[in-house]
């Protein structure tokens, strides 16, 4: 066989390989990308199908939209902060144990991931209602006289969202902390650095990549969260996702719903882009150091 024929054979084989990806590409294109493009198009059309920016003018001039943006960002930001407070010490504890024990505990952490979101939401309703287990426990311990409003509000939604995100947040941080060289920590201890000092100046900076990954996951998921605020919010917590549902089910206003959808997408892309940029910046810094 001469070189030309061989090259042609290689090219044909590459074309054959590429053709194998076509079914998956077509499906994702038609059922995930096209719908998003469709929303984008719809957001610029009137009911009659004429080009317009009225949908955006309508949603951007509505106070409801801005309060929805505020609620969305507040929920995501608060979820991230609580995930950090709960998740980083948990990851640190696990990274400091024997791998065998850590793996066992990891199964417990992953357990919620395998439980349906609706089962978990129901569980939280049972726990957090006025006459729920948390309130009755607090009252019988004499910590409070009146039941605390824990469900059907911002607090309840936040608890449900932290519960959903915490396992996904902990895993990349645990992986990053596992990779830290033990000798560095021993050296810091032998030179008399306090635990807090060691965590702040060695462990956190060295696991920054994992913390950023976890934070990105938290934002990408929580900005569009629908089930948890729709149920645990009890109609009082209205992030953009709930606003979209409301706009469709109450007003059948597809134009506004689409414009809100585009707004949500922009929010996800902006925060995602910012966190990726930060990551890139940190990596660059690490390479120069």
């Amino acid at each position: 066989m001469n070189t030309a024929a061989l090259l042609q054979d290689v090219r044909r084989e590459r074309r054959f390989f590429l053709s194998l990806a076509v079914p998956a590409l077509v499906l994702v294109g038609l059922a995930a990308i096209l719908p998003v493009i469709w929303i984008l198009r719809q957001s610029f059309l009137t009911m009659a199908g004429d080009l317009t920016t009225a949908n955006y003018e309508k949603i951007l001039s509505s106070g409801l939209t801005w309060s929805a943006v505020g609620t969305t960002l507040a929920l995501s930001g608060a979820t991230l902060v609580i995930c950090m407070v709960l998740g980083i010490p948990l990851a640190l504890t696990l990274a400091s144990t024997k791998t065998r024990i850590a793996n066992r505990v990891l199964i417990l952490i992953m357990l919620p991931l395998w439980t349906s979101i609706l089962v978990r939401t129901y569980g939280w309703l049972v726990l957090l209602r006025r006459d729920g287990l948390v309130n009755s426990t607090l009252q019988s311990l004499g910590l409070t006289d009146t039941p605390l409003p824990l469900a059907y509000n911002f607090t309840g939604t936040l608890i449900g969202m932290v519960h959903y995100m915490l396992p996904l947040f902990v895993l990349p941080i645990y992986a990053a902390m596992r990779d830290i060289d033990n000798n560095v920590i021993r050296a810091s201890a032998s030179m008399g650095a306090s635990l807090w000092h060691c965590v702040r100046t060695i462990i956190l900076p060295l696991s920054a990549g994992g913390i950023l990954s976890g934070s990105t996951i938290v934002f990408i998921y929580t900005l569009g969260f629908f089930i948890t605020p729709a149920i645990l919010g009890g109609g009082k917590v209205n992030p953009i996702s709930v606003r979209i549902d409301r706009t469709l089910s109450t007003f059948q206003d597809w134009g506004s719903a689409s414009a809100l959808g585009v707004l949500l997408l922009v929010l996800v892309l902006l925060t995602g882009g910012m966190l990726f940029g930060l990551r890139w910046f940190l990596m660059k810094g690490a390479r120069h150091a």
Partner: protein
Amino acid sequence: MLDAYYGSRLTKVALWIFSALVLVFLMLPTLIVVPLSFSASDLLEFPPRAWSLRWYEAFFSSAVWMAALRTSLLLGVLTAAIAVPISFLACFAINRFGGRSAGAIYGFLLSPSVTPGILLAIGLFFILAKLGLVGTLTGVLVGHVVLAIPVVVIVLYPAINRFDWAQAQAARSLGAGWFRTMGGIILPQLGLSLMTAALMAFLTSLDEAVISIFVANGPSSTLPKLMFMSLRDQIDPTIAAISTFWTLLISVALLFFNLRERRQTP
């Protein structure tokens, strides 16, 4: 890692107590539902004063809930049956093709997992409405397959990358066609990863709620959709029975899989 600091036991104990509390937080909402499902009372009282199976009876004798259960299981199986083969072919193509365009294909296939579910749901609703497929099993299935593809790709791609392709080349050079090589060399060695991928696709579909809420209707309603509707209106202990049953079903699927995996890896 912190062994140098565990010299003072206080640090270790404090960290573990904190972690144990976080673990309780993670497990409590799932576990609390189980005793409630066996309660005899109409109220969500805890601990229940008397026990009964009446909520399970209500669930298993309800035509609506049973239809939703059947729909969910059918969708799960179909999702796995479609998502795994097409994702496998795509991962294979990415691995063999290589280069920048392969990276782009990989990113494209993962994109549904980072798109907000509500956007996919209402966008898909638009498209399906044009095709007259809103409320059909096909419509919901398409949505579930698209959400399962990223999950399956994440499981399969590393396995396909680890695979020793020299074996496939050897088979090829001995005269086996691609299809023969696939069936005789590649598939048998990737069996475990393919099973993991199928299980993940099944569970992704089983737990999917947002697309179902917007796209499904009547007979195509899934169990999560009905649970959502019923949780939004009122909460009664039937949901506790369904939740317990649902969690048990998923645990059995995972356990069964875990046992098989142990048997396969010596």
